């Protein structure tokens, strides 16, 4: 079987596609916000610095008295660093959806693993 140029091109294309698609689909990608938060001590960062917490949710948290990221951390710690419980709490108290709540919980968990 003669390996022609067109066939080689096809194989190359397959390899490229596989190498690009498989990691993108299989790996759970973390956002830049997540990486920024987990990479350093949170100090006095506002709640909007938390992954999954945007402006709307941030305002709701502040209304409930959680004005800084470390206060939300406090709540996370009170719930014994249980991501499921914390997710439920976020959904109940500020009406976050599953994605936002689990993103925030994961962010805090990784921060705790690194710094606590």
């Amino acid at each position: 079987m003669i390996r022609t140029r067109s066939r080689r091109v096809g194989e190359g294309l397959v390899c490229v596609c596989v190498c690009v698609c498989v990691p993108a689909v299989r790996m759970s990608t973390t956002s830049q916000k997540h990486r920024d938060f987990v990479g350093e001590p949170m100090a006095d960062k506002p709640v909007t610095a938390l992954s999954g917490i945007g402006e709307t949710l941030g305002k709701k948290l502040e209304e409930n008295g959680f004005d800084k990221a470390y206060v939300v951390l406090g709540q996370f710690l009170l719930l014994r660093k249980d991501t499921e419980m914390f997710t439920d709490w976020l959904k109940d108290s500020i009406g976050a959806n599953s994605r936002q709540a689990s993103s925030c919980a994961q962010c805090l968990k990784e921060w705790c693993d690194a710094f606590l």
Partner: protein
Amino acid sequence: MSSLSDKSAQEISDLLDEYGIKHGPVVESTRNLYEKKLKEAMAKGKRAKPSPDKTYYREEEEEVTYVYRTPTKSEASGDRGAYPRARQEWNERDYQNETSYSNYSKPKPEYNRSSYGNEPDMYDTPSTYRSTYAKSPPMKSGQDVPDAPKSSRLIPLWVQFVFFLAVAVFLYLVFSTMETNETPKGIK
């Protein structure tokens, strides 16, 4: 059942332990969440209950009394002379049989003691057996089901599969439309 908001923090904590819910301190900010969890757990039906002190089996006791009574039976049948006595013993045996067969009848004080600690209203042994057996499969299936769907993914699983299939179809098309140059002239 009094409302959960009237209970003290310690009581809420104890209830959470009873239902097997892992929890932290019951403080102002966590109380609402724990009350909600308790309501959900109660609505599902009481899976966890305070453990009973003692469980006695009625059958065991009845068997013991039956064995004990058999000598009197042979004794009574042999003794024809004492009519009132035989009559009395026959009555006793009859009563014994009655209580051993009818589990649902009003119990004597000694049987009352032997009834189950946690469910005093159920005297029928086979039915309690069935009820405890029936509890365990739903428990297990209940535990399995919440675990499976709660996998937190950024991109939902079905989206990943669809994307993968699309890529596979695309690659197949690429392969199928490729022409193998078998002519000796080739590409020049």
